[in-house]
């Protein structure tokens, strides 16, 4: 089977997901409203923090919103991705999965097409967050290329989470249990990272966990770009690690999917 055929299959799986997504007005609206609420509420309630010079130093910026924007992006990517596996379980329940499997579609195209659509959705969300935050006075020192970088990393993180979710979905077969596990995963991942809170202000035990949390790699790379500039020596490691994690999780999700349908 040639590569163009596989790309064709991925494209149509992707097309379906995007088409379905754009039909849901409520979801698109929430895409804008949710980050807006987060930024306005959290941003305002925590803004006083930066008036304290020690806190400002820990945050690495005089504006808490600037500190938080990458965190919000990753959080949105986390929530967007972690429930990605439910789409395959819905397809199974509604019989669409069998419809695809009885067609001459390359098996790997099904998870890949879904992952790509989730990647694109998280990137759109990250872009919306970036635009809103600019209006709220956030200054990204690296400008538009920096924002593109932030959006790209958020998309990659969304794909990582969605791959984990898809791999779980392949083994679980029930939407309810996947939702439960996904819900269980999100909060600890969130709270043991530097998304909302600087690592330097954490107790020692938590900072160890936070440093190992892949969410922190993404956030710290993004935060560096947003607040300090293109410090390649500081970001190459987390970015490389993220790419490796993405490759591994995507491969695992494809393998798990293969196993569940053969």
């Amino acid at each position, binding site marked *: 089977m040639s590569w163009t055929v596989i790309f064709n299959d991925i494209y149509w799986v992707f097309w379906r997901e995007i088409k379905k997504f754009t039909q849901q007005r409520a979801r698109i609206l929430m895409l804008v409203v949710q980050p807006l609420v987060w930024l306005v509420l959290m941003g305002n309630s925590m803004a006083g923090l930066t008036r304290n010079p020690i806190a400002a130093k820990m945050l690495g910026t005089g504006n808490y919103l600037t500190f938080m924007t990458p965190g919000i992006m990753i959080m949105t990517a986390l929530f967007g991705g972690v429930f990605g596996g439910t789409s395959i379980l819905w397809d199974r329940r509604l*019989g669409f999965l069998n419809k695809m499997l*009885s067609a001459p579609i390359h098996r790997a195209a099904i998870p890949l097409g879904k992952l790509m659509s989730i990647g694109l959705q998280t990137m759109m969300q990250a872009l919306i967050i970036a635009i809103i935050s600019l209006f709220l006075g956030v200054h990204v020192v690296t400008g538009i290329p920096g924002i593109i970088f932030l959006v790209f990393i958020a998309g990659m993180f969304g794909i990582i989470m969605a791959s984990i979710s898809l791999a779980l979905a392949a083994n679980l077969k029930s939407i309810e249990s996947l939702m439960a596990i996904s819900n269980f995963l999100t909060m600890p991942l969130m709270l043991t990272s530097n998304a909302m809170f600087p690592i330097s202000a954490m107790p020692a035990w938590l900072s160890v966990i936070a440093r190992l949390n892949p969410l922190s790699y993404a956030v710290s790379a993004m935060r560096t770009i947003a607040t300090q500039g293109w410090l390649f020596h500081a970001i190459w490691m987390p970015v490389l690690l993220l790419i490796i994690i993405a490759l591994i999780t995507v491969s695992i999700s494809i393998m798990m999917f293969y196993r569940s349908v053969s």
Partner: protein
Amino acid sequence: MMNHIIEAHGLTKVFPGGIVAVNDVSFSVEEGEIFGFLGPNGAGKSTTIAMLTTLIRPTKGHATVAGIDILKQPYQARLAIGYVSQDLAVEDALTGYENLRLQAGFYHIVKIEALKRIDEVLEMVDLKDRAKDKVETYSGGMRKRLDIACGLIHRPRVLFLDEPTLGLDIQTRREIWKYVNHLRKEIRMTIFVTTHYMDEADSLCDRIAIIDKGIINILDTPAALKTSLGNEIVDFTFSKGTLEEQEETLQKITSLDFIRNIKFAQEKGYIASVTNGESSVPAIFEAIRDFPAKIGSISFKQPSLDDVFLHYTGHEMREEKVDKETGFRTRMIMRRTRR
């Protein structure tokens, strides 16, 4: 060889946990016929279809569809078959046209050709004027027709219809049968149908295999199946007499020359095939007048496929136990068809 468009040899599927869903099933389907699998839910119909459409691998046995070995060349087999599941797997948020465009994409049909074929299949199922509407505005019957159209977009040699009228009302079911019959007549398509509706098997199928607990009990034309039971049927139960007395009376009835055979079916009592029409009822009474056991109820009728099923499987068609997820899916289909 090639006039058998489907050939199955000893197909067997054992699911993890040792559940034998399909047990050594062999049959062949002629090109251009409507072939039916009749049996209750959980009899192994859908599992057989899933094996023939390459969705699951048989534990044992092999099969060819349109001359292609489904195990050795699953990809080629998928190109030759159309599969319309019982799930009504059309995308509600998309239009009818978009559903078909998606399906054409899955089959690698290039755009210009796809547009032509979408027109063609929409024509076949009479959905042309609704093609631009979202599927969520369609009735149950329209959704099913669209789903069937999806299965036709790549012009398959064989179309598999798994419970094509599940959950639909009787009028809509007749309408679906009309379209299916039309497909066979107009484009000589071979159609493999599974159903647990007797009337569906009767009015749609050229040949029927009765499947129960994973085994084919009998395979023939509906007419031949019915006549195999004798010309008419008499059901009766005993109301008086001990078991021995009933046994003695039964032997007398069995020995009558117009009785072809008698079977015992739990809830229905005894079922006798008779050859002398309505006069068999008074004849039976006459014959056992001096016997101690008395007949409590008796009825006379032309055999239906229900009787055929009862005769060959020894029980009436009823739902088998299904697992939670299957039950959920069935309720889902019901809900989606009724709107």
